[in-house]
């Protein structure tokens, strides 16, 4: 019962802030609503008993990625310049495409025989074992990827020497 209520609260929060994040004209306000959407996704993870992922979501998405986005906006954008159009005039086409995909996929989603009940919650020890034993190689490769992304971002964003 508690899970149901929390699910609907976080879903409403998530969808409203996601819609505002894609529809607001001011990109800075849109980014603030994107942060709200990240927090709501972390709440959705909590209703699924995925505490580790909820924490990671807050640390990485809410903490790091959104700060990066806000800084990029402040570095590149004239914040209150409203003379330029924020959208490219294809809103109707995009909304139509989305509506068609929505109808088709809801037909599929509701007719497919999904498992009806939830399994046991995953113990943190199992998760740690999977991450550091079964998936040890991808885990290490991820650190290489993050290092490469770090160096690449520094290289791309540094000032050109003349």
């Amino acid at each position, binding site marked *: 019962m508690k*899970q149901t209520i929390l*699910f609907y609260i976080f*879903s409403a929060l*998530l*969808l409203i802030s*996601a*819609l505002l*994040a*894609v529809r607001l004209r001011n*990109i800075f306000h*849109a980014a603030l609503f*994107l942060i709200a959407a990240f927090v709501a996704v972390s709440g959705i*993870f909590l209703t*699924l008993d*995925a505490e*580790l*992922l909820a924490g990671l*979501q807050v640390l*990485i*998405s809410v903490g790091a*990625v959104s700060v990066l*986005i806000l800084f*990029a906006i402040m*570095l*590149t*954008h004239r914040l209150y310049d409203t003379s*330029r*159009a*924020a959208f*490219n005039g*294809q*809103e109707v*086409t*995009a909304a139509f495409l*989305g509506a068609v*995909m*929505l109808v088709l996929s809801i037909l599929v*989603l509701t007719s497919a025989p*999904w*498992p009806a009940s*939830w*399994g*046991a919650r*995953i113990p943190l020890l*199992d*998760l740690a074992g*999977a991450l550091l034993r079964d*998936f040890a190689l*991808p885990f290490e490769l*991820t650190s290489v*990827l*993050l290092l*490469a*992304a*770090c160096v*690449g*971002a*520094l290289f*791309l*964003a540094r000032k050109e020497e003349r």
Partner: protein
Amino acid sequence: MVGLTHYLVLAFLLFLVGLYGVLTRRNAIGVLMGLELMFNAVNINLVAFSRSSNFSPASQAAGQVFAVFILAVAAAEAAVGLAIVVCLYRNSGSIQVDEADKLKG
């Protein structure tokens, strides 16, 4: 009781909202924000499936491990993508995606 289908429909709605943002924004950072929403939708799907009952405990944990990897890849994507946006702004003075047509010749 909320079932798996609820989570799947929620994740799909979030994915479509992100897709709408990617297709309609003119600002490159707005496009990246739409991408982040789509990453989150996929993560909700993975975590919801990892909790459903007809999988073995090992593959249940694998669902959440994949979500962790997607979080890491999303962070790397945001860092490199925003660096490219800053670079584009420095070179052309604009980050509108429909004005970035230098490669057209």
